[in-house]
């Protein structure tokens, strides 16, 4: 299936919004990287720099009541759905105002109200879930579509074949979008996939494929709009390959020895954000001054997001056991039988060392059915050490 050769431009307001959102994602990711280097952000951090057109072009092909589900590289997917950058940054900082309450971190963003159904840390783990979401839509009746994004590496997982087969068999309204950024972590596409024409990988499973230029937001949007429209109408899945490139390493801990500087530089020449801005200026839809203002606005929003995240508290120690289960009437107190866990007092004492997270007064109780007098005395010490180590840590610049 060929994509439209001459994607038409959206209305001027929409075009500026696309540019503004791509710019916001870029600036957000850059700042997230800085915050990681300053040890404000823990764990892994996977940035979408270079892939902004695949995010905005695809998400803008959706209606508000459609679902989007993504991977561990998902800050941009939350932002494009409208999750405030403050809450995304606070999630990276592990704070209570994070969009997952500080429980998920970089790889597990979530915003149910905006139908962003999550980032998932397991490669390929989100595909079956996407099919389930589409099943529920279909079962209940509305013509909602689910857009499921994943990387080229995920196309080798068992869930890829299993889910595409099942979705085709059950005629589920899912657009599977493989964001082909050329690498499964550090393994190049030709070294990890026997078939490198990824749009064809669904053919034997009954899922036709399409392809778009993931460095071009107009082409991405045009192809995804066609795919989403067809899936909504025909109630069966499609696979779209978006060919793109991430400008930064797989994560912040990636020395990038698997690709050349020349290759990265050649892709950077196709940077989707200035390319789109140039189109808009050429078409008379954007002034240079407005372009600069969009960038300044994005930087200001990101500054505000960092400020917000810094001031948001860490989750309280006594919240450790919250939301392990949905507690219902008649069952409360039974679900978490943790006899060896630390008490709130112990946790409060440990977290107090940190000086930032120690909000707990130790007076609230955990939902335990029984607590042991032999609770593990070592835990507070371990926590103390971990928290103390966290305060001092710094990251070498080389990993970025």
């Amino acid at each position, binding site marked *: 299936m060929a994509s439209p050769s001459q994607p038409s431009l959206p209305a001027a307001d929409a075009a500026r919004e696309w540019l503004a959102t791509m710019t916001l994602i870029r600036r957000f990711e850059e700042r997230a990287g800085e915050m990681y280097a300053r040890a404000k952000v823990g764990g892994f951090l996977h940035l979408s720099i270079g892939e902004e057109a695949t995010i905005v072009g695809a998400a803008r092909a959706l209606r508000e009541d459609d*679902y989007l589900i993504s991977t561990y590289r998902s800050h941009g997917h939350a932002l494009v759905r409208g999750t405030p950058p403050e809450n995304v940054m606070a999630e990276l900082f592990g704070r209570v105002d*994070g*969009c*997952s*309450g*500080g*429980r*998920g971190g970089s790889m*597990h963003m*979530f*915003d*149910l109200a905006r139908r962003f*159904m*999550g980032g*998932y*840390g*397991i490669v390929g*783990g989100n*595909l*079956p*879930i*996407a*099919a*389930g*979401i*589409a*099943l*529920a*839509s279909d*079962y*209940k009746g509305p013509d909602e579509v689910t857009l499921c994004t994943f990387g080229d590496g995920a196309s080798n997982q*068992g*869930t890829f074949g*299993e*889910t595409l*087969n*099942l979705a085709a*068999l*059950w005629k589920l309204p899912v657009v599977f979008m493989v964001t082909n950024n050329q690498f499964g972590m550090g393994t190049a596409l030709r070294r990890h996939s026997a078939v490198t024409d990824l749009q064809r990988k669904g053919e034997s499973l009954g899922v036709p494929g399409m392809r778009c230029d993931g460095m071009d937001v107009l082409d991405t949007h045009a192809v995804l709009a066609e795919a989403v429209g067809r899936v909504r109408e025909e109630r069966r899945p499609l696979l779209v390959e978006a060919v793109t490139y991430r400008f930064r390493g797989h994560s912040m801990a990636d020395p990038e020895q698997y690709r050349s500087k020349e290759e990265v530089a050649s892709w950077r020449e196709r940077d989707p954000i200035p390319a789109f801005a140039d189109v808009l200026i050429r078409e008379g839809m954007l002034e240079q001054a407005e372009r600069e203002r969009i960038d300044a606005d994005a930087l200001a929003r990101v500054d505000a997001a960092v400020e917000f995240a810094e001031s948001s508290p860490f989750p309280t120690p006594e919240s450790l056991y*919250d*939301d*392990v*289960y*949905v507690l*219902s009437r*008649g*069952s409360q107190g*039974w*679900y*978490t*039988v943790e*006899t*060896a866990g630390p008490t709130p007092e112990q946790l409060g004492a440990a977290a107090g060392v940190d000086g930032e997270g120690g909000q707990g007064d130790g007076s609230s109780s955990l939902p335990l*059915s*029984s607590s*042991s007098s*032999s609770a593990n005395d070592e835990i507070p010490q371990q926590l103390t050490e971990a928290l103390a180590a966290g305060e001092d840590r710094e990251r070498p610049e080389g990993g970025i």
Partner: protein
Amino acid sequence: MAQMRYREALNGALREELARDERVVLMGEDIGVFGGAFKVTDGLLEEFGERRVRDTPISENTIVGVGVGAAMTGLRPVVELMTINFALLAFDQIVNHAAHIHYMFGGQASVPLVVRMPQGAGHQLGPTHSHCFEALFLHVPGLLVAVPATAADAKGMLKTAIRDENPVIFIEHESLYGVRGEVPEGDDHVVPFGRARIAREGTDVTIVGVSRMALTAERAAETLAADHGVQAEVIDPRTLRPLDLDTILGSVGKTNRCVIVEEGWPHGGVGANLAALIGEQAFDELDAPVQRVTGADVPMPYSKPLEDLAYPHEPQIVAAALAALNLAPTSAGSATGAGDATGSPAGGA
């Protein structure tokens, strides 16, 4: 009360919940046209149609994952896996996703999903179809783990599982499907989670039997009474998460001796966990070490004489109870092979 088989009780629970709640959807391999590998879903496709009773491809991880996604967005899926060994193919969706989504997304989404599966040896199905993996699921916060032993509990607990907001691992037993029992009639028979069943009252020794072993323990208790004058109290925990530790500790406080019986492996097993909890919380009540009777520490063999040795039977339970009472075995059933199968780390490892 109605007499029915365990499988019919499960079928009744599914039928009633399908009729009661439009959001309930069944999915699994061969559950529709075939009627279920163990006929638990027999007749439900005809009654409720393809939309609600869905045959799936053989794709365990994806079937469970589809259940996760559907549960997150408003359905109440009940997924059948053909045996518990096949659940290992779905461990990613069960552990990384079903169990964690409520927590890792800050409580925004819940996963009211039931994953049903049978376990257990005795039918010479060999090393990939016969195991008991309660302990693997028990290990995971976020999951509820149900192990019904009677027809009444099979029905009442499956209805509870379907109505619960959390992911439930519902473990049936292949050898129990044909066992009859009294089942309360009517739509309102639900058995709450976290309440153990005292299958037999006694004063001398507490025997905790998991899944089918609750029934084997009851038979052992009759032998203990008839042949040894020992009155055993038999407790069926019904659910391992949540665990009704209070009832077990209450019984141990009365008898001061405890035997735990499970079919699974000894290391890191249900009994190991429970023995630790009893040791931590009721050490002063104990007059003897907690005894464990477990499956042998081997992959399940096919050959009948070996298979019989590899999971617990009544004589081993009797022997373990007598050991807990410091009584020597006096008659038949002096634990042939029990030393191999009781799963003491020394014997088992």
